[in-house]
């Protein structure tokens, strides 16, 4: 395996050092290191080095939705975005509710080889919320499923959720909940509040999230299970999470970049590019998300990368599908909302983008320290760069980014997965 010398990178934003990667691990860290013969030299010249990013929440759409994304294009977007590991949600066609489908996703991810693709298994058969899928078979198959979710739908039957949490404890896996009480969100189109009232869009009340999270925390406590809360969007949910964590409940939570940055104020154009579930909420909510992420009440960032074909967005609001691209803009949105505001330093960024998500999913070889002997899995970032988002230049098949034309800070210069450069200077290394 080839070697790489990274010259003068700043791990976690600390003082510049040279790093030699050899045989997939970090072989040396020090000053004025010599390049091993035949090594690729990356002159980092002050670039920030962080462990490779881990995304617990993406939709890679394959199988069944290849008009929006494939495991190949999604992996490319991930590598370009600085990710070395992504979790692929099971709402594909067919649904990833069996060993057959999760193994397919896992195997395709390996074949593409740009990032570690971990399939998330469905909690219930067909995401129908009626009976448990074969969690044990999926956990023990070669795909080794670590996380289960009906994402896109809430496991809203309390008895079924209880059983899922209990059953999961024997498998040492985590149940990730899309927290949305469907009885409170019938026909919902936008965050319930002043903007939705004005625009005539049926409201998605924040209580529909908060109440499910509160219920699930109680169920997880009794089951002794690990609960992960997907895409937290409401300030009220943060209060529930804080109390649950203080009570020692094994609960973790993620927030998306768009819920850190965007508010429902952008809805007035009725352009469904901004339609997402859970919906964009208020400025008070984005402020609460940022504070909770900085504090650690929300553990990590996950993109909820959700590609859709043009016809699913180029229509009236109510007919449009929910979701937005996120993999290639996540770092920049994070730098804009968390680093520039002083809420997180680069150590904190490593925590929310890499270390915590890897811990939540129980990954041994992701989110590791940048130290000798650890996996050579890292991302180099130019914090001083700025770029303008152009949807047609993103690697995804779909183009549904809400950041079109926005100028954002920071750029991924290189992504390295176990000693292999997967992306450099905006180009994928296939």
């Amino acid at each position, binding site marked *: 395996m080839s070697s790489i010398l990274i010259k003068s990178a700043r791990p976690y934003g600390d003082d510049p050092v040279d790093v030699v990667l050899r045989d997939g691990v970090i072989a040396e860290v020090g000053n004025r290191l010599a390049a091993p013969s035949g090594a690729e030299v990356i002159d980092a010249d002050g670039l920030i080095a962080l462990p490779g990013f881990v995304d617990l929440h993406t939709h890679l759409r394959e199988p069944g939705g290849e008009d929006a994304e494939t495991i190949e294009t999604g992996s490319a977007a991930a590598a370009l975005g600085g990710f070395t590991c992504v979790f692929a949600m099971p709402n594909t066609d067919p649904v990833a509710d069996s060993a057959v489908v999760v193994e397919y996703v896992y195997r395709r991810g390996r074949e593409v080889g740009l990032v570690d693709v971990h399939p998330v298994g469905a909690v219930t058969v067909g995401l129908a919320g009626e009976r448990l899928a074969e969690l044990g078979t999926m956990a023990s198959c070669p795909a080794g499923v670590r996380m289960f979710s009906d994402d896109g739908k809430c496991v809203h039957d309390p008895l079924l959720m209880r059983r899922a949490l209990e059953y999961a404890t024997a498998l040492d896996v985590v149940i990730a909940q899309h927290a949305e009480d469907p009885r409170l969100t019938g026909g919902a189109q936008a965050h*319930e509040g002043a903007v*939705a009232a*004005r625009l005539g*869009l*049926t*409201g998605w009340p924040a209580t529909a999230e908060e109440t499910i999270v509160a219920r699930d925390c109680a169920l997880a406590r009794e089951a002794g299970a690990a609960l992960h809360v997907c895409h937290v969007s409401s300030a009220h949910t943060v209060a529930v999470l804080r109390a649950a964590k203080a009570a020692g409940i094994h609960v973790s939570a993620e927030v998306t970049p768009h819920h850190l940055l965007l508010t429902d104020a952008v809805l007035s*154009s009725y*352009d469904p590019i901004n339609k997402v579930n859970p919906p964009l909420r208020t400025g008070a909510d984005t402020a609460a998300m940022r504070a909770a992420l900085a504090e650690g009440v929300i553990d990590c960032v996950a993109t909820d990368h959700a590609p859709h074909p043009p*016809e699913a967005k180029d229509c009236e609001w109510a*007919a449009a599908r929910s979701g937005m691209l996120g993999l290639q803009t996540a770092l920049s949105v994070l730098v804009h909302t968390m680093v520039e505001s002083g809420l997180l330093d680069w150590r904190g960024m490593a925590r929310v983008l890499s270390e915590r998500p890897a811990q939540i999913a129980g990954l041994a070889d992701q989110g590791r320290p940048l130290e000798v002997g650890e996996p050579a899995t890292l991302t180099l970032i130019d914090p001083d760069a700025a770029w303008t988002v152009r949807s047609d230049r993103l690697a995804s098949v779909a183009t549904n980014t809400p950041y079109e034309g926005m100028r954002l800070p920071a750029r991924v210069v290189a992504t390295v997965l176990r000693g292999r450069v997967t992306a450099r200077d905006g180009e994928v290394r296939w």
Partner: protein
Amino acid sequence: MRHLISTADLDAISANLLLDTAERLKQALLGREVRKLPTLRGRTVVTLFYEDSTRTRVSFEIAGKWMSADVINVSARGSSVAKGESLRDTAATLAAAGADCVIIRHPASGAAQRLVDWGGSINLAQRAPSVVNAGDGIHEHPTQALLDAATLRERLGSIAGRRIGIVGDVLHSRVARSNVFLLTTLGAEVVLIAPPTLLPVGVADWPCQVGHHLDAELAGLDAVMMLRVQAERMRGGFFPSAREYSIGYALTQRRLDMLPEHAVVLHPGPMVRGMEIASLVADSPRSAVLEQVRNGVHVRMAVLYHLLAGAPEDRG
């Protein structure tokens, strides 16, 4: 004026201009044997209705025809993605075929605004059609608010300083939204009167007052606008029963007697007699329901006139 999507886009000057034009058109047609003005000859107006409607569609059609426009009615069905042609493709087709104005009613809030935005991106030899919102979901119905304002002005002499109650299912009412913004722009005080379950969360941000008790408000009102209780939009559970709704919010003879002498009763129709409004009240001289319909034609003529008449360079 290029499009009419929301009454919030109208300032007092342009709103009054529309109402004045409607009044002038009404006078111009008064007592004429042949009710036809040549103003929009050669202009093509398409009504594109994705929802059932009798009064609004007929009103727009008559308005167009009385001004000599060629009016074409298109009935469309179903949502865009589920089946058939998308809204965008339908809109592009109408534009390419040469429509000067598309009057759209659609069950999705914001559909009219989408048409405007797509018009800007469609690459056509001619300019994109003007868009008139004839009701989009539970968002707005601006020409209904204009005809209500025209009727109030006629009956009360003026709108500024008047107190107007809007009663009933505000949550699902595009009429209520359009009226709140237009009437306050014209200087009226608006009070929404409904059970809390039929008011949107966030209504506190609207430029109006909110009450829950109709009896307590009646004596202070110059006009009361009864909203349709839209049974087809009800997902159930907004109030216990039709009977209890009637007890709290129907405009009965007893309540009519509690209004000041001069106060007017409006209803956008179609009326649910009994549950919303007693038949005696609906048919009483205090009711302006049929005047609303008549004014609807004149107001829509005024809207089409300001969108379509005049030299093209004035309309850019």
